[in-house]
């Protein structure tokens, strides 16, 4: 089985580590965990893009483990 492991290397060097965030924001973390979709739910099927602008369906991620991490330039 192919494993797709990608580290979250966003431009977040000035931010606190994740554990510190979760510790400071236990309520937000708890709310997030019970917000749909929760663990066990299917990944919503949506169309997004590759950086080159080609359409990409989230359903096409099936077939291997994928880590999805949100990020941006800032």
């Amino acid at each position, binding site marked *: 089985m192919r494993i797709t*492991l990608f580290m979250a290397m966003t431009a977040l060097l000035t931010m606190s580590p994740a554990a510190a965030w979760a510790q400071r924001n236990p309520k937000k973390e708890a709310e997030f965990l019970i917000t749909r979709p929760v663990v066990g739910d299917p990944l919503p099927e949506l169309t997004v893009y590759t950086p080159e602008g080609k359409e990409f369906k989230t359903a096409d991620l099936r077939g291997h483990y994928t880590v999805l991490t949100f990020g941006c330039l800032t």
Partner: protein
Amino acid sequence: MLVYKSLAHPELVGTYVQPFTLDERLAHSQQAIKELGTTMPWLVDQMDNRLKHALGDRPNSEYVIDPLGKIVRKRAWSNPGEVRKDLEELVGKVKKTTLPEDLKLNVVPPLAQSAPKGDLAPIPRAGLFPIVIKPQLDKDGDLFYAKLRCEADPPLIDEGKGKLYLGFHLDPLHRAHWNKLQKPLRFELTAPEGVKLSATTGESPKSSSENDSAPREFLLDVNSWPADKTIQLTVAYDACTEDLCHSVKQTYVLSRQRDQDGGRAKSAGFRVLTLEQMTQRLLAGDKNGDGKLIKEELNSIQQSRFLDYDFNKDGVLEKDEIQTMAEQLTASAESKE
């Protein structure tokens, strides 16, 4: 896989501003890939941030999806150490663990503006939040060299009476600057009945620099803005690129509604660490108090940059190396001059 979405902190790292078009967002994602020197695959969310909204609406959340397309892990804030554990549990241990330095990331600085910042003092924006603006896009029209950032204080958003910030920020993607021989930027607001503003037109002050890139900013008092009314803003300016100046006229529609995807801009309350604070943050990990840092004394994100600053490659960051690291991290968080 990184999902690229709206900026969490416009103007914070470099002078990036929220993109208006998908092409601009794609250019941002390509720039981010270049800045991080990464080879991992990325996805880019649609301009309405629908994937972000569909997955809990957090700026840096993380999900693990199994081969059947089912969510098997989620956390509100990405954590590389935890995700590694997740994958060991779900798939098994790997023979060789990839460490941040194995990635050999060729990190490059953010895009700089094409002119110095100049001498116009910024308008303080503490306590202001972005509101929804709709640029009137015309595929045959000029680029949005300068992009409107519109912010309001809570009384204006909640009750229709308060402060309204209008800032026209040059987009570093388009390499334009202001030139003092050109007419200053001017705007005009067209408000329906029931909207009362302290001014409906404005003209930016002139910078003393020949060329500069400072945002052209205005702060208005709004005495009344019913929630169901929109305000039209038209702006005219000359944006100068390398070989010519473009006379541009562009229109926006403003709504009295918080823009949940607008992010918190640097000067609108998001704290940027000073050099001293950044140094203290790095040294907070100095467990044995010797004033030096070994890799294990840094957090996982800082660790990924360890080799970049261990100039003499002795496995320890000494005082001068810590100082350089703090300077560069502070500089990357400040707007580029």
